[in-house]
């Protein structure tokens, strides 16, 4: 009786050794409930200690383990081997990012964009903790709640063809986070964030492909956030056109 085997083809790239990336194949014992991450861990522990990849929580909440699995951006900890046709699975680094080594991508661009959109509560006046929490209704929470679920896994940037063509595009996750703060009833920072998201390379580069929302593992729906931000931008522009001396929020 032969043991069930899965073949994992992983992109290898060692900047100190390799001129360019190449595929390496490993055979791992197959178990029905295995995820791709289990296979990578098996390889590193038993077959090849040099295989390099990121992971931590293994439950789909830390956002470390993004990779292109059979061409689709996925979390390796949440991709079951049985989801894929056949027993050979290709694992490549997330597309649209420079590669540091093997499956490790350089995420400096995203980290920079994260700071750019000022992802913190901006208020004219803060009240001291002794005064208690800012009140927020369930309806107010719902207006931004889903957009606060982003785990920063960057699958959306890998799926976005616009980002693939133009690195300056603000992109799905960053815009969704900006929208999350704009719509938070406790935040008063529209005036600060609008100029950033309404630059040409902010929301306007988005052509509604929608792949970002398709691959998002947490249901954030960044495409929706981008379109909603476009509408905010359009209505804001109209308002300032019709009421040049009108107040903001």
């Amino acid at each position, binding site marked *: 009786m032969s043991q069930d085997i899965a073949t994992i083809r992983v992109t290898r790239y060692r900047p100190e050794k390799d001129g360019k990336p190449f595929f390496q194949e490993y055979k791992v014992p197959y178990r029905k409930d295995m995820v791709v991450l289990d296979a990578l861990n098996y390889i590193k522990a038993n077959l090849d200690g040099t295989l390099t990849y990121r992971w931590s929580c293994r439950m789909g909440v830390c956002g470390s383990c993004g990779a292109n699995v059979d061409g689709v951006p996925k979390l390796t900890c949440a991709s079951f081997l049985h989801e894929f046709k056949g027993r050979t699975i290709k694992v490549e680094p997330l597309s649209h990012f420079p590669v540091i080594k093997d499956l490790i991508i350089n995420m400096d661009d995203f980290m920079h964009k994260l700071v750019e959109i000022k992802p913190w509560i901006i208020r004219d006046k803060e009240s001291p903790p002794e005064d208690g929490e800012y009140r927020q209704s369930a309806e107010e929470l719902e207006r931004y709640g889903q957009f606060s679920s982003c785990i920063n896994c960057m699958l959306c940037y890998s799926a976005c*063809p616009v980002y693939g063509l133009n690195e300056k595009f603000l992109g799905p996750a960053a815009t969704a986070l900006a929208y999350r703060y704009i719509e938070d009833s406790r935040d008063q920072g529209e005036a600060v964030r609008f100029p950033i998201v309404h630059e040409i390379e902010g929301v306007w580069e988005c052509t*509604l*492909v*929608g792949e970002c929302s398709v691959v998002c593992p947490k249901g954030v729906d960044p495409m*929706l956030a981008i*379109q*909603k931000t476009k*509408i905010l931008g359009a209505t804001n522009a109209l308002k300032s056109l019709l009421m040049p001396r009108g107040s903001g929020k």
Partner: protein
Amino acid sequence: MIREWTSFFVAVFSLIYIYELSLFASGAKDSALTLMRNPGIVAFNVLALLFTLYHAFTWFYLIGKVQPIKIGKTTSKPWQALLVNIALLLIISYAVIQILILR
């Protein structure tokens, strides 16, 4: 990504259409009509129309999701936006055909 591919069909359709118009403009009406009746061209036009409708319908649904309309306490659902826009599409198409083509 299917919606992205519709632009390919629209682009090719536009090229064929411009060519047909240029034939009419230079007086080669018969060549133009022959081309338009070509079964391959007709088949392509049908395919392009289907893709364009797919693009339109998914777009209508998206608009419904992005900008729901609030009437009193109820908020519109995306499928409602889809139906309303399909209805508008049919009405406007009918009007265009009546006024500009069949007159």
